[in-house]
């Protein structure tokens, strides 16, 4: 399948295309507007998304709808405790050639697609979880010393089930850091529930129409991702993002060398063991750029950074036992961090 050359996108095109994809997804997903926008933003920013939601909130439906709307290939892996790395990356098998000779041949695993749903990723062992690391970060898989490149666009959506934690393996920090955003899917409210019922139990089932043609889909998505990178960010805004990330780091952290000009909320010192890494700042900027384009702007501002901060930073802050016992979560802390950094503006 060869990609067809497409016209370069303009800022206006980006927003229009984005809204069209969003509209198609919402044909089958009721509510969750923010979650869908975040999901698409992560895709356009070139990252991967961690979705936390209870069962039955439409996670799988969402991924399917996204794949259909984008006209891209997608796979789903149900992570279980006995899932092995080779089950997801692929393995070498012995095949008989035309000449009758037997030789090893690589059989690609389910990671070889454009959109991957890693369902309940925390149920697999850390070894299997880490098998996704290379694929997510470097867009390649190495099996038996041979690297196999994944075709862009490559987008991983991993889901976490916040209940039934028995027999699960929490994701290591290094892997969590690979996800650009963490999106929460909550139960729908009553009105949304009624719409879900009426749209899924009737005779006519809603169908998602692809926004792009099969040949141009990948190229169009890549074009949109390139445009995101072109958005202008003033040094002042970059500093603001850096300041925000530094503010997530507790003052007593032994990994923070210089504490000058850091706005640290007392709650951060109390509840956070480790703050965000520089990947958090990258996530902030990229998310802000997408948001700017959606607003038909060619520049990202501080408001964009602030809007993206809960999505980009909450899962990057490692909370301590005090936070868990006091019922404090990452998004609450990020809210406080944003306020404290906003106080330093000027």
């Amino acid at each position: 399948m060869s990609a067809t050359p497409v016209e370069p996108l303009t800022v206006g095109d980006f927003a229009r295309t984005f809204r069209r994809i969003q509209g198609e997804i919402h044909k089958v997903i009721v509510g969750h507007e923010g979650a869908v926008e975040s999901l698409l933003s992560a895709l356009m920013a070139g990252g991967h998304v961690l979705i936390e939601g209870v069962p039955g909130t439409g996670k799988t439906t969402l991924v399917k709808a996204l794949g259909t709307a984008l006209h891209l290939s997608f796979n789903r892996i149900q992570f279980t405790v006995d899932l092995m790395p080779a089950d997801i990356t692929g393995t070498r098998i012995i095949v008989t050639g035309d000449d009758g000779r037997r030789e090893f041949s690589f059989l690609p695993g389910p990671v070889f697609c454009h959109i991957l749903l890693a369902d309940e990723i925390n149920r697999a062992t850390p070894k299997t979880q880490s098998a996704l690391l290379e694929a997510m970060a470097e867009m390649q898989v190495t099996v038996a010393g041979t690297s196999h490149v994944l075709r862009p666009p490559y987008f991983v959506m991993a889901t976490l089930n916040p209940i039934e934690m028995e027999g699960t393996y929490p994701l290591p920090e290094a892997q969590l850091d690979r996800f650009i955003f963490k999106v929460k899917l909550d139960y729908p409210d009553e009105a949304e529930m009624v719409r879900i019922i009426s749209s899924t139990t009737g005779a006519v089932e809603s169908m998602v129409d692809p926004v792009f043609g099969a040949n141009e889909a990948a190229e169009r998505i890549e074009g949109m991702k390139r445009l995101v990178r072109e958005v202008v960010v003033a040094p002042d805004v970059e500093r603001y993002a850096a300041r925000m990330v530094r503010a997530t780091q507790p003052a007593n952290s032994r990994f923070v060398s210089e504490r000058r000009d850091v706005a640290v909320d007392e709650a951060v010192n109390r509840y956070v063991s480790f703050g965000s890494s520089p990947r958090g700042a990258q996530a902030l900027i990229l998310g802000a750029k997408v948001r700017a384009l959606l607003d038909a702007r060619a520049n990202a501002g501080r408001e964009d950074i602030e809007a993206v901060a809960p999505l980009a930073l909450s899962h990057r802050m490692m909370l301590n036992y005090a936070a868990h016992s006091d019922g404090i979560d990452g998004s609450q802390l990020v809210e406080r961090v944003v306020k404290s950094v906003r106080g330093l503006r000027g």
Partner: protein
Amino acid sequence: MSEVAGNQGRNEEKLGVVLGQIDTIRARINRLALQQAVFVTIAGVVGAAAIAVASAYLLTPLAFLITAAIAGLTALIVIVVALRSAWRMRTNRARAASIADERAHMDGRLTTIAAFATTPNRPKLWPYLLEDALMHREDFAPARIEKRRLSRSIFALMSAAALALFAVGLTRVVPPHPPTIAAPPKTVTLDLRDLTIDPSGTGGSDGSQVTGDQNTMRKLGAMLARARAAAQGKDPISQMKDAANRLANRLRDKITGAPKPPPEHLKLADKGGDSNSAKDPDSDQPGQDPSAKNQSGDDSPDGSKPGDSPDSNHSTQMPGSSSDAPANQQASAGAAAQPGPADQSGKDITPSPGPDSQESANEDRNGDNDSGGASHGTGSDASGLFGKADKPATGDGSFQIAIEAHPASIGDDGGDGDRAPKVDAALNPDQYADEPLSRTAVPPADRDAIERIFDQ
């Protein structure tokens, strides 16, 4: 190629428009900052000065001093704060763009343009950014971003001006000092025992003169020495309070322009004369000049007659002998070379408001114990009723000492120290000022009648 150049030219033109508006905003904000600095500084100075002037007219010296100090300190703090605030308020182009972004909800467009305006490598979306910003041109018009042309601190200036007007009005309406009953007499004759030497005196050079005979002046010198010693032993708080009072008085007089009282001439007499006198400061002074003691001991306790001791040189001699008093001694301010402690004392000598002085004053007015009022408290008889008319008290044989003879006493209550208590009292129509009448020549035809009345 020419199309690219044309596009670049148009972009620069758009950039110029955007930056022009940002610079105008910046100029407005900086102008406001400057206005704030100037207005508040002037308001602080004028306001503090007005409060000081008004308090000088309306309050007691100490209250004036405190009020003026607080006003000055407050003004200083306000000025410093305002200058700091103005310094922080001033902007450069980037900050002006940031302010415009915030106020016009431009989502960082202007900040981004200002940041990349000077860089040679413009971003790919630069033309779009410029065009986008220009579309919102009206939103960040300088008049919308910063509406004010005049800083709000103008109200502070106006308030200070109103206060200054009030103070100026006060100077026209209220006299410099509370009204006095009458100007203190130029010549006051006092008994040495009635003197209260105030250690808090300023020692100022108001030109007052003290005259008296040798013995009296010696005793006065001793009294001054004692007063000075007492002043040195006074507790620091009292000394500070006295100093504050003096400072307040001087400042207040300067501000209100109050005229200095005319120099006074104090004639001192030692009516008691005796070392047993309770008020005699020399009575138990060790090291006293024996000759002074002897001379003092010669005086009769009830007031010596001039004829009894013609050589005693009292300043209160009868007219007939007054001209024969070459040793009559006189003290005047500024005679620093004069011997004795009095020449450098710098102390106030004030008539004591005690019963003795009141008695003395009554006696003077009734003429019971005087020979016509020329010399209070010295005693007289009919033979001394008539003589030559008084001449100015200064004589060639007198000496002068520099002491503060201002009839003032700064009371413990911090009251007005410029007026002697005696002078404060209002005189009824039947009373006369507590001042000896000048001796005048009596026609020979009237002398018999006067003598007869005096004898009766």
